[in-house]
């Protein structure tokens, strides 16, 4: 195997472990930390079913953001929805037998890359042009946008400009999944694309990308509004009663 193939195999194993362990540990921490008081932002649903619906509206439609700011909402939503299509399209590189629905969304997934880039550029423009957003931006906030745009553009290079040997790429990832490493093609667009993706996986658990698992644990959104009906008591608060 070539040096590049060995390096990328190692990189992706490492990235996958960092991602899974890192995000897993974070989710474990969120789950085990108690919410001692009922703090849903009201009006809030009074049943668990209602909370599931509220969460669905937040995660799928970004309801609060829609109420808040139409520009951030439109760019943010286009980016996230496009990213979802792009990710789903990529499932084909990890399967011998590609599921029918993955094949069906392929054309949408391909062009969704443009949506990703448009959304990201819109968000970046706001970060630079709006004085309030500029003020709250750290270098990492700009770099995160650069990283995602880099991933998008390098991917689009392969889709729309100069194709890579996609059959070999698929063999590489299937090989990794079966713990039998394979050669990786070495065209620059592919190597850049994969390097940036690995970087994204590695920074995920130590960055603001934690908003993805975090939103599900937000007490202001996921709590049922029933404090009078049901007594809510955290373990450490129960200790105080003894």
């Amino acid at each position, binding site marked *: 195997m070539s040096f590049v193939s060995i390096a990328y195999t190692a990189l992706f194993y490492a990235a996958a472990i960092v991602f899974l362990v890192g995000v897993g540990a974070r989710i474990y*921490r*969120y789950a085990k*930390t*108690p919410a*001692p*008081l*009922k*703090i849903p*932002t*009201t*009006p*809030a*649903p*009074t049943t668990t079913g209602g909370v599931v619906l509220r969460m669905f509206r*937040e995660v799928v439609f970004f309801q*609060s*953001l829609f*109420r*808040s*700011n139409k520009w*951030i909402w439109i760019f*943010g939503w286009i980016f996230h929805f496009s990213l979802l299509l792009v990710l789903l399209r990529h499932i084909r590189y990890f399967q011998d037998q590609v599921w029918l629905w993955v094949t069906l969304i392929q054309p949408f997934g391909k062009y969704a890359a443009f949506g990703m880039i448009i959304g990201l550029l819109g968000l970046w423009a*706001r*970060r630079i042009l*709006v*004085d*309030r*957003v500029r*003020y*709250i*931006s*750290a*270098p*990492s*906030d700009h*770099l995160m946008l650069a990283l995602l745009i880099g991933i998008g553009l390098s991917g689009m290079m392969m889709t729309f400009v100069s194709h890579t040997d996609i059959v070999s790429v698929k063999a590489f990832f299937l090989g990794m999944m079966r713990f039998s490493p394979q050669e990786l093609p070495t065209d620059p667009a592919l190597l850049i694309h994969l390097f940036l993706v690995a970087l994204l996986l590695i*920074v995920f658990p*130590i*960055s*603001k990308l*934690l*908003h993805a698992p*975090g*939103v599900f*644990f*937000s*007490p*202001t*959104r996921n709590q049922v*509004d029933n*404090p*009078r*009906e*049901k*007594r*809510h*008591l*955290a373990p450490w*608060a129960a200790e*105080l009663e003894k």
Partner: protein
Amino acid sequence: MADFDVPKFREIPIIPKLQEGTMEHSKPYVAKADFQQPLGYPGELLDNWKEVAIDKMGELLGKYRSFQVFLDACVKCGACTDKCHYYLGTTDPKNMPVGRQDLLRKVYRRYFTFAGKYFPKLVGAQDLTEEVLDDWYSYFHQCSQCRRCSVFCPYGIDTAEISMAAREIMDAVGKGQKYCNEIIGKVFKVGNNLGLPQPALEDTLEGIEEDVEEETGVKVRYPLDEKGAEVLLVTPSADFFAEPHVDGLIGYGKVFHEAGISWTLSSHASEAANFGMFIGSYENMKRVSMRIREAALDLGVKRIIFGECGHAWRVAYSFLNTLAGPFDFLDPNYPVPQHICEFTHDLIKQGKLNLDKSRNDDMTLTYHDSCNVARASRMGDTPGGQFTIPRDIIKASCNNFYDMSADTVYDSTYCCGGGGGLLTDDLMELRVKGALPRMEALKKVVDEHGVTHMAAICAICKSQFAKVMPYYGFTLDQIVSVHQLVSNALILTGQKSDDDEDEGDED
């Protein structure tokens, strides 16, 4: 009138350009040892305050999921940046919700995250220094914990949770705020925020009884510490003498009288407010809440009802069961606790109150949703009852009512500018500037609909508005209690009909 510039009404509601540092000088008085120690906090800034602060932050991260998740989840999207009344009124970027959170988040990142430990500049992490502590003290006392930001954040990040944690950390290192901590001390010592002892309360209530009898010819009782009463009424102590609060208290008494339900106040729990929430202290909040449980047990009541108050209703509705429950010794047919508005609303629905709306015809009203009622609690059985029930009561009590703009009411309501432990004279500039968005909305209905009065159901809102409205060209008597309107309209059974009654109500 003031040694600072009162903000001007914006002709077009554009978001103001930020100006750094405009409110850096705003700091409330620091609590002396006498006010710190009774609450279990060090009397002055500890020598090793940095370590203690970081340890406390670590402890809170393990105790409050909200704190942990909110510090991690923010993506700096900017959705909240124009949502805080203090930002709109002061244009200081550290008064943008995310700007305020970042004061604490940058320290969190420095000491608790991989990226902040090894790449601080990259992620905007910063060491905890004296300057940072100064900033905390200044800007975490410029948050009224109104939760408007949490409504608009895509992850529901609530700056109130962050500022409560920050205040708890500052208390733990010996840099507490005088106003809140002195008041909590008074509650422990005397029973209420204002330090009114039992004889003074008794006196006040007797005076009210006399006034009401003189005005109506009906002996309406305002009982204190009466064992065996059905209802314990817990109300903010401002209701005992401040204007327009006391007119609300008069109203509660009339409503109970007409309902034919015996009730009592308690000198042990003569305060609904719970400033333990403002300083983020679960222990102090619990200790303050326990007085209510003790009073209910001691007096043998069957129900607990809260008077018109904002944050107190949040603590009562959302936390009381947790902090001082279970309340299985009370009548299970009623929610514990109930809001006086829920009680009055039920009576109105049952047709038990003889309300003559025309008695409020000298006023055209609007209604200010108090933030803790609107965004942190509920009334009635359905979500949003906290908006409809008070409005239903107002509409049943008067003929002329107009809501303010939709983006300034319900869960988008703007804070009065004085909540969250900021209702103190040493923060007057902040209070006046923070009231700007609400004053603009009020001005609009005044101009468009001839609104003359604004009703509210929060003691802090009422005190704050009475103080700041004159800065904006209104008069201090344009803020009224909701139960004041009920009181005006209610014709008691056997009430003498007199024609010059209206005069007594206004001022």
